[in-house]
C-alpha cells in the first residue's frame, strides 16, 4: 500500500535534506537531575560526560531544589499520581485551586486558569476570547505557540516590527474600526533576551482602546524587583489584561502553564478554551512542587538577586573577552556568530571542553543571525561561570573571532 512505498521515500528524502542543510535536531540524553552540572550521553551510546549546562531555562536553579523535591514527594503521598480526567469532570483537586490563587496573587492579577503547558494556554486563549470581528496585532518575534493560537482563531491578525512602538501605533490606527483590538507580545523574547516595552505598550493600548496580552514565560520568577515579571519591571502591575506563563522554566521546570488576568477573561477560558476542556490539567505532584516554588520566591528574593549578579558577571566576562552579544538585561545572553556552520562547530567544541550550550540558526532565528544562546541560572556558582568563560575564550580564539565586530565576523565566515 501507499505507506511503504512513496510516503516512506518522501519522508526519507525530506529528512536527508534536513541533515544535509545541517539543521537536523539531535537529542542529548541527560542521566542526572537538571542542574548546573549534568551527566550527558552524546552522541547516543557514548560514555556519560560531566558538563556544565549553559542552555537550560532553569533560571532560578529550582529544577531539582531539595525543598521542591520534598514537596513533590509529599504531593505523591497525599494527592496520588494522576487525575485521569479533565478538570470539569473529576480532574480538579483542592491544590489546583490553591495554585491558581497563588499565581493570581503573585502576578497581581484577578484570576488564573491552569493549562497542561503554556503552549496549550497560548493555543487556546485567543479562540476562546476573540471572533472574526476582532483583530490581533502581534510583535513579529512572539513565540511559536502564540502563532499557533492565532492560527486557530478566526480574528484577523496583523504584526508590527519587533518592539517598534511607532509601527505598533500605525497598526492600531489602521485597525481602529475593529470591535476588539488585542496587542500581543512576549515579555522577554526568548531568542534575543530583550524585554518588551510594556510601559509604552500600556500607554498605546490605553490611547487606542486595545487589550494587552503578554507571554511572560521567560520572565516569571525573576524579572522585576521581586520577580513578578516584565510588568513589575516596567511598573505596570495590574495593567496587563492577559498574562500567560509557564511553570516549565524558572518555576521548577516540570510542566504546566496558565492564563492569568481579568476575571471574566479567565472565566471565559474555563468555558471555551479547548486545551483546558479536552485535556488533563497539571498532575498533583507537579502542582505540589510549583506551590513550593511560590513559597520559596515569596519568602525571599535571594535567588533572583543571585541570578542578576551571575548575569552581570557573565555578560561582562564575555564582553571583555571580545564577543559580540545581543544587548539586554535578562539572563538570556546570545553570543552572536552569524554563520550557522560556525555556530554548530562552536557548540561542538564547547561540549568537548565540558560546556553544554546549543547553537541556534535559521529558521529558529533570522538568516545570518546564528548564535550560541547562553542562559544563566541562579544554580550556577562562580566557578561554573569562570570555567565556561575559559572555554568560550578558548574556542573563540580557535576561530579567531575575539575582538571582531559583526561585520568582521561575517567577512571572515560569511552568512
Amino acid at each position, binding site marked *: 500500500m501507499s505507506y511503504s512505498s512513496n510516503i516512506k521515500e518522501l519522508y526519507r528524502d525530506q*529528512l536527508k535534506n534536513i541533515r544535509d542543510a545541517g539543521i537536523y535536531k539531535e537529542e542529548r540524553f541527560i542521566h542526572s537531575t537538571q542542574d548546573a552540572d549534568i551527566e550527558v*550521553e552524546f552522541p547516543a551510546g557514548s560514555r556519560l560526560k560531566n558538563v556544565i549546562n549553559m542552555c537550560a531555562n532553569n533560571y532560578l536553579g529550582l529544577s531539582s531544589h531539595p525543598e521542591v523535591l520534598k514537596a513533590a514527594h509529599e504531593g*505523591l503521598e497525599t494527592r496520588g499520581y494522576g487525575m485521569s480526567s479533565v478538570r470539569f469532570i473529576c480532574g480538579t483537586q*483542592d491544590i489546583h485551586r490553591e495554585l491558581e490563587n497563588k499565581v493570581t496573587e503573585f502576578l497581581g492579577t484577578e484570576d488564573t486558569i491552569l493549562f497542561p503547558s*503554556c503552549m496549550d494556554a497560548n493555543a487556546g486563549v485567543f479562540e476562546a476570547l476573540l471572533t472574526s470581528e476582532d483583530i490581533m496585532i502581534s510583535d513579529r518575534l512572539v513565540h511559536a505557540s502564540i502563532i499557533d493560537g492565532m492560527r*486557530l482563531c478566526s480574528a484577523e491578525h496583523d504584526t508590527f516590527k519587533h518592539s517598534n512602538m511607532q509601527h505598533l501605533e500605525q497598526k492600531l490606527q489602521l485597525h481602529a474600526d475593529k470591535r*476588539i483590538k488585542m496587542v500581543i507580545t512576549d515579555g522577554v523574547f526568548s531568542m534575543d533576551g530583550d524585554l518588551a516595552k510594556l510601559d509604552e505598550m500600556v500607554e498605546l493600548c490605553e490611547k487606542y482602546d486595545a487589550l494587552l496580552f503578554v507571554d511572560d514565560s521567560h520572565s516569571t520568577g525573576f524579572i522585576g524587583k521581586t520577580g513578578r515579571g516584565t510588568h513589575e519591571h516596567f511598573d505596570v502591575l495590574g495593567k496587563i489584561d492577559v498574562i500567560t506563563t509557564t511553570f516549565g522554566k524558572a518555576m521548577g*521546570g516540570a510542566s504546566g502553564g496558565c492564563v492569568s488576568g481579568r476575571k471574566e477573561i479567565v472565566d471565559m477560558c474555563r468555558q471555551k478554551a479547548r486545551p483546558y476542556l479536552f485535556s488533563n490539567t497539571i498532575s498533583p505532584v507537579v502542582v505540589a512542587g510549583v506551590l513550593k516554588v511560590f513559597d520559596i520566591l515569596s519568602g525571599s528574593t535571594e535567588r533572583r538577586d543571585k541570578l542578576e549578579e551571575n548575569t552581570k558577571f557573565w555578560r561582562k566576562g564575555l564582553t571583555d573577552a571580545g564577543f559580540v552579544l545581543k544587548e539586554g538585561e535578562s539572563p538570556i545572553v546570545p553570543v552572536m556568530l552569524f554563520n550557522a556552520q560556525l555556530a554548530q562547530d562552536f557548540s561542538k567544541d564547547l561540549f568537548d571542553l565540558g560546556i553544554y550550550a546549543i547553537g541556534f540558526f535559521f529558521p529558529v532565528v533570522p538568516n545570518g543571525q546564528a548564535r550560541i544562546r547562553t542562559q544563566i541560572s541562579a544554580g550556577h556558582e562562580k566557578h561554573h561561570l569562570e570555567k565556561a568563560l575559559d572555554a568560550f575564550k578558548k574556542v573563540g580564539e580557535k576561530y579567531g573571532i575575539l575582538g571582531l565586530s559583526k561585520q568582521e565576523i561575517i567577512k571572515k565566515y560569511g552568512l
Partner: protein
Amino acid sequence: MYVDFKKHLQAELEKITEAGLYKDERVIGSPQQAEITLTSGQKVLNFCANNYLGLSNNPELIKAAREALDTHGYGMSSVRFICGTSDLHKELESKIADFFGTEDTILYAACFDANGGLFEPLLTSEDAIISDSLNHASIIDGVRLCKAKRYRYENADMEDLESRLAAAQEQRFRIIVTDGVFSMDGNVAPMDKIYELAEKYDAFVMVDECHSAGVVGKTGRGVTELFDLRGKIEIITGTLGKAFGGAIGGFTTGKKEIIEMLRQRSRPYLFSNAIPPLVAAAGIRMIDMMTETNELQDKLHHNTDYFVNKMSDLGFDIKPTESAICAVMLYDARLSQEFASRLLEEGIYVIGFYYPVVPDGEARIRVQLSAAHEHEHLDKAITAFRKVGKELKVI
C-alpha cells in the same frame, strides 16, 4: 479598553449560564481512586474518571515516580532538543513502541499536543485527511492547523468512508483518521474494515487510542490487538493521562520515518517541555506491570461485563459497548442532570451529558468502569441506579 470587553464577556458568560452550559468544577480533596473525598467532606464512588486500570493512585507507580524524583529531579526546564531529554524519556519511548508493536515513539506534553502537532509536519495541500465525524477535539485542531484537503465521514460509517476515499483519489497521499474508541458511546472503530478500505484505496491510517489503550483487546494493547492488526497501522496516538496512570503526557507511535519527521518538525514537540522525568519513570513501570501480568486488564473486562449485564437486566437502555465506557441512555437533558445529582446524593459520582456534547435528544449518563472498582462498589452503584431509576420512572 477592558471596560467594553468586560461587558461583552459578561454578556457572553450570561448566555452560557442561561443555556445551562456553564462549566463548574467539583473539587476533590483526595487522590483519584474508586472512592474519593469531595471538599464538602462527602465520600463518593467515582464512576466518571478515565482511570480504567485503576493506576491513578497505584503504589508501584508512585514508588517509581518517587525514585525518579531522587535520581532525575523535578523538572527539565527545557524542550527536548535543547537540554530536556532524559534517559527515562528514551526508555519510555522504546517501551511504548514494544507495547504497540510499532517502530518508534515520540512523547508529547499531552495527547492533545500529539494530535495537534501530527498532521502539519507530514502532509501538505497536495494530500487528503479523511476524518471520522466524532473524532476528538484535539484531532480536529490538528487538522485545522494542516493545509491538506479535508474530508469527513459519518461516525464509523464504512460506506461513507469509501465514497470519501474514492473522491480523494486525486490527492497525493490519503490518511484515514479515527478514534479507536469513541468517548461518548464507547463503540470501537471498525478497524478491520478501515484497514481493508485503506488497502483498497491506497491510504494510510491513524488511530487515536486514548480510550482504548490498556482497555481494549485481551491484553489491553488497544484496537490493533482487538482486530488483529498489530504492526499494520501506520500511526497510533495515545495518552498517559487516562488508563496509563492518568498523570499527563501523550505520544505518537508508528513508522520510523514518521516519528523521525515529527522530531524535526512537530511544533508542540519543538516548542514545549516533554513530560517530567518522574512521569516517564511511572510510565515505564506501568508498561512493565502490564507486561508481567494481565490481572488489571482482566479485572476491568470482568467489571465492565458485570456492570453492563446487571444494568441491562434492570431494564436500562445501554448503548452497545466494546470498551469500559457504558452510556446509560436517558434522552432528556434535564432528566440526565436530575438523575446525576440524585446519584451523587446516593454516593455515586457520574456525569450527565447532553447537547452539544452528544447529539440533541441523546442525553445520557456516561459510566466509566475501572479495575479499581471492587464488586461491592459495582453493586452499590447498581443499587443506586435502580433506586433512582424507579424514582424517576426510567425503568
